[in-house]
């Protein structure tokens, strides 16, 4: 049985980056799981759960690497189940509640484009393990992006109601977009070493791709206003703590529990 010990929260730059990548996937994957038995149609439920599975699998690859580099993180399960909200380093966009189906798809599409562009550069990372994990992930993420893009277009250029819901979803999530392109010192040091991509380059590519999709979907690209940030440094919105409480309760009640 594993003891409920505190997980180290002082990471070097690379592990900070790896945990951010892992946590984005973990948190978004867990949010998608909340659709289980609630999705609008059966096919969509299968798709949401399979996407979630991909994200968890990728998170496991990242976490195993973080644990390899820092034994104090114990193992993949412990680092997922025993870290508190403030030690989670995902971006805020990933933890936003599911809302309606348009909210889920808007959040997911905007993240997918960022995720794909980031992984594309990471495939050529100076760090071989990072490059290998990225190359494995990108094949799956391209497929996710295709799917969420289709939904954004279908709902945007759909009925009056679906159009209006998708537009509201975009307007609501937009305040969390800016954080995807921010970089702190830890990340900039990895950019300088050729390990991580420069998010400034990715930001402009992201804008071009998203604006083309929104135009096709007859949607209006929201104006950039105030950006809510802090997730990458462990400062989260209200929803994450509640989500983690549910996700971690079993493991914390039965330390070391496995399926």
């Amino acid at each position, binding site marked *: 049985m594993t003891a409920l010990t505190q997980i180290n929260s002082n990471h070097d730059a690379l592990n900070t980056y790896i945990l951010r990548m892992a946590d984005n996937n973990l948190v978004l994957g867990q949010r998608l799981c909340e659709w289980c038995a609630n999705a609008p149609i059966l096919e969509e439920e299968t*798709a949401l759960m399979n*996407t979630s599975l991909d994200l968890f699998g990728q998170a496991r690859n990242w976490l195993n690497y973080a644990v390899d580099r820092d034994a104090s993180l114990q193992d993949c399960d412990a680092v997922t189940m025993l870290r508190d909200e403030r030690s989670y380093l995902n971006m805020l966009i990933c933890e936003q509640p599911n809302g309606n189906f348009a909210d889920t798809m808007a959040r997911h599409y905007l993240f997918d484009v960022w995720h794909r562009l980031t992984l594309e550069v990471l495939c050529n990372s100076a760090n071989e393990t990072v490059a290998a994990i990225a190359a*494995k992930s990108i*094949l799956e993420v391209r*497929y996710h992006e*295709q799917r969420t893009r289709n939904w954004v277009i279908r709902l945007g250029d759909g009925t009056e109601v679906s159009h209006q819901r998708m537009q509201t979803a975009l307007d609501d999530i937009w305040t969390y977009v800016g954080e995807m392109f921010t970089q702190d010192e830890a990340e900039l040091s990895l950019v300088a070493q050729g390990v991580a991509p420069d998010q400034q380059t990715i930001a402009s590519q992201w804008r071009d791709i998203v604006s083309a999709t929104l135009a096709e979907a007859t949607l209006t690209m929201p104006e950039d206003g105030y950006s809510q940030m802090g997730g990458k440094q462990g400062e989260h919105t209200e929803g994450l703590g509640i989500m983690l409480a549910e996700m971690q309760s079993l493991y914390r009640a039965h330390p070391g529990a496995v399926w």
Partner: protein
Amino acid sequence: MKHIDLFTPVDLISTDRGRDIDFHGRNPSVDEVWQLLELVPDPEIPVVSVVDLGIVRDVRDMKSGWEVDITPTYSGCPATDFIASEVERALDRAGLEAKIKTVLAPAWSSTWITAKGRQAMLESNIVPPVHDLNTLACPNCGSDQVNLKNQFGSTACKALYTCHTCLEPFDYFKTI
């Protein structure tokens, strides 16, 4: 215990859970171990072996035992751990000690599925990966009047289609 002749081609059937080969105490060649692994079915698509699916990447004789590299099809494939233990058990039953290594690079690609694997899929109504989705035809009646029902099917590696001609649903093994 059922022993089979190593060099008789065998078709896997869905109830197979690995057959036994006895090397009678001698250390087999690398080729023979590959042949042994061709008898290990994929748990999700049991008509296709883990070798024909391209999951087994390398087999090495380490003299003090064997090392087998396997790679997951999808990062989150829930069968990956099971496949590793099935491969290990198959070697164990043949009296060989084995260490299974999971490798991520190069990433698994659907182009690694062998011709034999593709044929076996088709025969069980799963369309193997195609380059051009316009060439996709119903495995049941051959019609090209097919429609994507869902980008994800019964497993992460498949998508769900229906045929407008014979009205049968079928799985398509996705190209990645």
